[in-house]
């Protein structure tokens, strides 16, 4: 079992500049932020290194941070019984992240979900389709600027009140 500081240190020694930021000391959510281009190598190291052995991908979450998206990988090791998280940041204009499907089988559906709801493209994913929403849905609902569609498949969205809140309206979040 390694503590988060040791894990971050191992990553910094192994990958140096690719680790952009780390938040491990007395943190409720110990994680490091890594360069998106080295993500695959870093994940491979975390999975295969004997002291890391992160064999379990708990979840992948996309977070809308305005100009950029954060993609969060929450991982755990059954062998060593420790947990950690990896973050990477991609620009809103072209959110492309390498897929980690070949490392963890669980990534397949989590990446599809993140693509579906957040619109982040996972390069190298074998089957990147929408998963929760219909295939012909427009837009990605978990983005902060998402507006409700006026209609879907001939069904109109009816509102009893014009002041009905639309999550895409900015002031709702402020």
């Amino acid at each position, binding site marked *: 079992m390694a503590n988060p500081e040791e894990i971050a240190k191992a990553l910094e020694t192994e990958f140096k500049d690719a680790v952009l930021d780390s938040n491990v000391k007395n943190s409720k959510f110990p994680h490091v932020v890594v360069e998106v281009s080295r993500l695959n190598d870093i994940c491979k190291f975390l999975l295969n290194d004997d002291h890391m052995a992160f064999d379990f*991908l708990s979840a992948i979450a996309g977070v809308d941070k305005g100009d950029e998206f954060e993609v969060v990988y929450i991982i755990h090791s059954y062998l060593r019984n420790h947990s950690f998280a990896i973050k990477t940041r991609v620009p809103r204009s072209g959110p492309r992240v390498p897929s980690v499907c070949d490392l963890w089988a669980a990534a397949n559906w989590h990446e599809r979900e993140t693509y579906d709801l957040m619109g982040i493209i996972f390069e190298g994913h074998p089957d990147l389709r929408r998963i929760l929403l219909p295939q012909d849905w427009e837009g990605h609902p978990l983005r902060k600027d998402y507006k409700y569609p006026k209609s879907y498949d001939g069904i109109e969205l009816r509102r009893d009140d014009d002041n009905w809140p639309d*999550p895409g309206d900015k002031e709702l979040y*402020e």
Partner: protein
Amino acid sequence: MSALNTDIWTLNMGPQHPSTHGVIRFLLKTDGEIIEDADPDIGFLHRGLEKIAELLPYAGFMPYTDRLDYLAAVNMNWGWALSVERLADIEVPLRAEYLRVIAAELNRISSHQIAVGSLASDMGAFTPFVHAIRDREMINDLFESLCGSRLTFNYCRIGGVSHDAPEGWIERLSDYLDYYEPMVDVFNDLITNNKIFVERLKKVAPISAQKAISYGLVGPNLRGSGVKFDLRKDDPYGIYPELEFDVPVGLGYHEGELGSCFDKYMVRIEEIRESIKIIRQCIERIPEGEIVAKVPRNLKPPEGEIYCRTEAPRGEVGFYVVSNGSPKPERVKIRTGSFAAMSTIRDLARGWMIADLVAIIGGFDVIAPELDR
């Protein structure tokens, strides 16, 4: 292509099919009766809960967590409450911790009753399902006296629970456990040790521990493959460290394959007994006192993020919550056990019979609201 050399048929299964445990659809490619490909089509119950969470105050999302998994509402409530409590550093009174464990374990029993009963009914044995429902009904009665609801309990609050146990409730609970514990044996005589049932399941779709971990299986589905991991023991929360219980794992029961549908079923039966054991200990030790901590009405957790996981009947349920210091969360990601189980099925079902697919779904105890969120 197979030895039969028949044409590949494309068949539709669901979304409204009695054995798919909710609205789930499969696109099957079959060679005779053998499955070549089973592509799950999910999302029929997608309500956008993660988006809803961003629009509500922290406490306001609690009733929605009931709908995450309506068979185990308290466990979901607890997951959400615990995430926010850890984020905002809220201490929960001891009596509330005990009430939470009692409610959560009672809910685990009722959820497993449905799981084992419906697997039996999927396999063509209807009587066990009725037996399980009969015993579950009494749990619903207990919950109704406790919090006024029979399905979506909305029992946990941030910092505690909504209602104290009414007078005489603990005695009624104790009576129920005295009644139900022998009924587990009756249930076992009826179906678990039934030769037809055992033979039907014990070699179907085994999944190795390594594959189960890679696919992210959790809870009884993972333990069925022989991995002894339970968040209540290995990453404990609440008062679980003070309670004594075992973690049952799959053993290849009845000389079957390790990690088969029967092993997962058996883990659930054994977990029912462990839950009874846990509730009995809580009944003995439950202290008097407050049931909810003092939490500001307009709760604003400090800026930060957290991933908090708890052991629900369908395994690890994790809430990844990002707070920006405002009364509403910036992002909530919910990780559930059924989602992982469902993603495994395509790989696992290949080469098995259509009738076995029903056993695989039932064995995983997949439930649609948790899958689609």
